[in-house]
């Protein structure tokens, strides 16, 4: 499955929930199933700035594919990060660099989030892209 197909599948999965608040609720539920990052990974190096909540993203390359783990001090942000990890983990660096996370807009989640939070999520997307791009360079 390509990254674009996985994104569409995630959108379809969440779009079943019609009520905007229940959809946000599902995102928070997803956060509950996201394993917390251990203390030794909640470091300044992994921290994503410009998030008003504290947020961390860790990426690694296995067998040519990127895998991401994340954490945040807000359950809602944790859920959104989990969504981004679900989207991008297992994809190739080239795909990750190319595909933007349109699921936040398509699912109407962006409408429920403040501008500062959306900026924070943009920073998370940028971090994920940078981590993937670094592997692209090292592979190339």
């Amino acid at each position, binding site marked *: 499955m390509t990254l674009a197909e996985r994104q569409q599948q995630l959108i379809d999965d969440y779009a079943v929930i019609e009520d*905007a*608040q229940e959809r946000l609720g599902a995102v928070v539920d997803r956060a509950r199933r996201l394993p917390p990052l251990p203390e030794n990974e909640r470091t300044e190096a992994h921290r994503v700035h410009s998030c*008003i909540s504290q947020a961390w993203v860790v990426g690694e390359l296995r067998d040519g594919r990127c895998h991401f783990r994340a954490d945040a*001090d807000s359950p809602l*942000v944790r859920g959104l990060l989990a969504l981004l990890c679900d989207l991008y983990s297992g994809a190739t660096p080239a795909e990750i660099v190319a595909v933007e996370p349109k699921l936040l807009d398509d699912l109407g989640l962006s409408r429920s989030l*403040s501008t500062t*939070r959306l900026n924070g999520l943009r920073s998370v997307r940028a971090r994920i892209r940078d981590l993937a791009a670094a592997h692209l360079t090292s592979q190339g």
Partner: protein
Amino acid sequence: MDRFLSRSPVASGREREGDENDFPMNKAWANLRDDFPVLHQQVNGHPLVYLDNAATSHKPRCVINALAQFYERDNANVHRGIHALSNRATAAYEAARERSARFLGAASAHEIIFTAGTTDSINLVACSWGGANLGRGDVILLTEMEHHSNMVPWQLLARRTGARLRYVPVLGDEGRLDLSQLDRVLTPEVKLFAFTHVSNTLGVINPITELCARARACGAVTVVDAAQSAGHLPIDVGALGCDFLALSGHKMCGPTGIGILYGRQALLDAMPPWRGGGSMISNVEYFESRWAPAPQKFEAGTPNIADAIALGRAMDYLDDLGRDAIARHDEKLATLAYARLKAEVPGIRLLGPAEHRSGVISFDLPGVHAHDVVTFADQEGVALRGGHHCNQPLMRKLGLASTSRASFYLYNTEDEIERLIAALRKIQRFFAG
């Protein structure tokens, strides 16, 4: 029960004996919410409950009309024009200055400087008075509850001049100043004492008349941050005995981008200008200039004419309601909200005093991030604010990263407290699930 609050069906069920006489209202309070067009809308499918008044207040129609009328009928630059429109604009702008002087109890309109807001006003004092009067070894005294806008300008000034900062401590969650420490920190090295009238996070009302008297006895100049109190509480700078007082128009039913610095005439006369440009001079040569007297000395460039005029209209509106009545309305709602939140929202941690407070209530719901509280409350049509509220050092002292904040103003009702509590309980159930 007063007429305004009792229009709420919830409120009428909670009437207490004796309330009929403790809230004298005048005609201006009848149908008051109709004066605010923005309140009448649905947000996320619910009628808007606006509880973010500490960030900015809404504008009554008369203020919006004042802006429109200026631009539609009188728009011209002020002071040096000769034509009819310029004369009208100048008259209206200077009338707003006179109005502001009356609103604050200033000795004359010469003591009123129009600024962009409280932050701008405080920076003016820091740059002009502070630059001319502070040096190494001097102390700037602040309190631990100051908004960043009444902290950072003084940090910059201290860095420029070699002066030191010192703080009056805040006592725990209730947030009162530890006045037992005042003698220890208010020493003869203190040249300036800047403090907020009302805390934007704690809702505590500081005893500013006492603070001004103590500072005066010590020879320190006083700066009152009235961002959260002007338009909420009666203020008379003469009775207060302060040297400077700063306020923002947008938090008191006026437009954004306009504020006031009140300064005692003798101090303003002795202060150098801080921004150069047109309007602030009496004579300009190629290599030197002479300044106009205050307040023009501090208003370089074309001022914010329309917003100053509309701020004057906001002052009329507030005084028609009566600032005593507004203060009692705020306090009544905030005291009720505090008590009900404590009783009905399990585990909630409330900041600020239970009584004798302003309309600002900050709280922490254990296990729910403040930004999530605000996001989910918004889904219920309830507008709150979450974050550090420009009080980062105070938050750290209280062991909090952020809080949620509900802040009430003259158009809020007891029904809206009901909506707030229902939203918070729903959020709690959801995050507990």
